[in-house]
């Protein structure tokens, strides 16, 4: 079966797609592999778009996962500038703009996620060139130019991306005002202490926060905007960047029989409710056997490895995806890392006393690490966060005393 010629089609040209195409070729050199993407670029890394690219420390051209040569040599066709707008799961045909019509034997949906849009009372503001979102290279290039020109920038939303953009703007010695409707930065999955330390760092750099703040209205006054918060505080700004979360990119499939619940529902083998249709990356709500539940992740490593596992299963290897979730965020010289699940636990313990040596919060369930989140200057928490994933994966019981004792090496317990 493995050597049978198939038509393998991948919708979306992001991280999951790129790694899936590479993995397919490790097992199958005969089948046709085609990536269809609405973007004009080959698949690229998104994390630098809010970090090094914004401060000119990394070139956009250097963000590709693989060069053109890789796709050529591996006989992987990348069709760019094509937005898929219809799909017939019975006839196994997808259609897009520019008369694109393609059939498939196996389909991988890797359409990622899209930015949640802020509702404006005044719809004219939707097309304002100084109200921006960040998702792709073009957005990042625009923001890169605008942050150099602006005087009093505002970020709406204190999730990872909003905070990273704020940290990047600070490199140009500008103070950023950040507005967040909840009471803490980066959502409830991050331990409160860590979100406080991140907030403190931003404040030390001159950024100002309005938490627990809803936006009542945004109006344009000459070239500036006036944002009114619910307690009637007015904030004047010449640049608004919005980062209020993302939603899975499933609109094309919404009226089909494909089961979608907070993303495309797939099992541990990346298979959807329809035969021969797989999904991976940000768009998939996948069953995780280790936690016994479905989850949807928006993270770099997950997109990479989920893509790889989808490919293995498309090639008939039947391997279940059991990776422990992991993600990071870089802001100023701080590096935050999170592994596993940090909002479902019966006990917790911390390790380390400050961000110089690194602080990690471990979340335990029945004496087994369920999740861990750490913050440090540079990569100081990386090793123990990684070990937390390994201890969790192997379900090794470990005491709070050991976890909190910085003189005990955790690799001894694996």
């Amino acid at each position, binding site marked *: 079966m493995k050597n049978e010629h198939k038509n393998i089609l991948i919708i979306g040209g992001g991280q999951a797609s790129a*790694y899936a195409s590479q993995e397919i070729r490790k097992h199958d050199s005969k089948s046709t592999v085609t990536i269809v993407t609405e973007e004009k670029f080959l698949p690229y*890394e998104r994390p*630098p778009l809010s970090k090094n690219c914004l401060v000119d420390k*990394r070139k956009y051209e250097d963000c590709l*996962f*693989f060069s053109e040569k890789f796709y050529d040599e591996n006989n992987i066709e990348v069709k760019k500038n094509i937005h898929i707008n219809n799909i017939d799961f019975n006839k196994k045909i997808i259609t897009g703009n520019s008369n694109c019509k393609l059939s498939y034997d196996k389909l991988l949906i890797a359409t990622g996620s899209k930015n949640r849009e802020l509702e404006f009372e005044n719809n004219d503001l939707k097309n304002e060139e100084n109200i921006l979102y960040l998702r792709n290279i073009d957005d990042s290039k625009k923001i890169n130019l605008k942050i150099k020109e602006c005087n009093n920038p505002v970020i709406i939303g204190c999730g990872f991306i909003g905070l990273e953009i704020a940290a990047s703007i600070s490199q140009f010695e500008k103070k950023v005002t950040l507005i967040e409707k909840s009471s803490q930065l980066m959502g409830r999955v991050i331990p409160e202490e860590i979100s406080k330390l991140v907030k403190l760092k931003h404040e030390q750099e001159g950024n100002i926060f309005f938490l627990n703040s809803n936006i009542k209205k945004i109006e344009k006054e000459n070239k500036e905007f006036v944002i009114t918060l619910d307690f009637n505080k007015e904030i004047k700004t010449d640049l608004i960047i919005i980062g209020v979360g993302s939603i899975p990119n499933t609109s094309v499939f919404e009226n089909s029989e494909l089961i979608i619940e907070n993303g495309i529902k797939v099992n541990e083998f990346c298979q959807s409710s329809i035969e021969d249709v797989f999904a991976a990356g940000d768009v998939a709500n996948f069953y995780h056997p280790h936690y016994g539940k479905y989850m949807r992740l928006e993270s*770099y*490593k997950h997109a*990479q490895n989920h893509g*790889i596992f989808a490919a293995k299963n498309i090639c008939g290897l039947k391997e279940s995806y059991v990776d422990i979730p*992991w993600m*990071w965020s870089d802001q100023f010289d701080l*590096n935050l890392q999170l592994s596993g699940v940090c909002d479902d636990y019966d006990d917790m313990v911390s390790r380390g006393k400050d961000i110089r040596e690194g602080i990690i919060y471990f979340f335990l369930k029945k004496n087994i690490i369920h999740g861990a989140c750490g913050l440090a200057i*540079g*990569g*100081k928490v*990386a*090793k123990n966060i*990684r*070990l937390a994933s390994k201890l969790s994966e192997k379900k090794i019981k470990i005491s709070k005393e050991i976890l909190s004792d910085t003189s005990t*090496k955790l*690799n001894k317990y*694996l």
Partner: protein
Amino acid sequence: MSDDWKLVCKVEDIEMEDLIRFDHDDKTFCVYRLEDGFYATDGICTHEAVHLEEGLVMDSEIECPMHQGIFDIKSGKAVSPPACDDLKTYPVKVENEEVYININ
């Protein structure tokens, strides 16, 4: 040439299954101690120019602390993405309980 050997540290300065960073001129390296001896590679990850010194050493592999690309310590080979280009490796010798690296 004998003077290409640079003194890194004492044997006891590197714990088993661990590494230390070694800087020389404008170059930086990682020197590892594994069960079967000492090894050395370039210090900077080939993926996104991050130093590997805070990375996890396990099963003869070094994992980048920032994006978790993995390299085989003995061969320098990139074994797990996002790392795709190999790390350069360097000869290491131990003399009189001291570790030396040949960085030529």
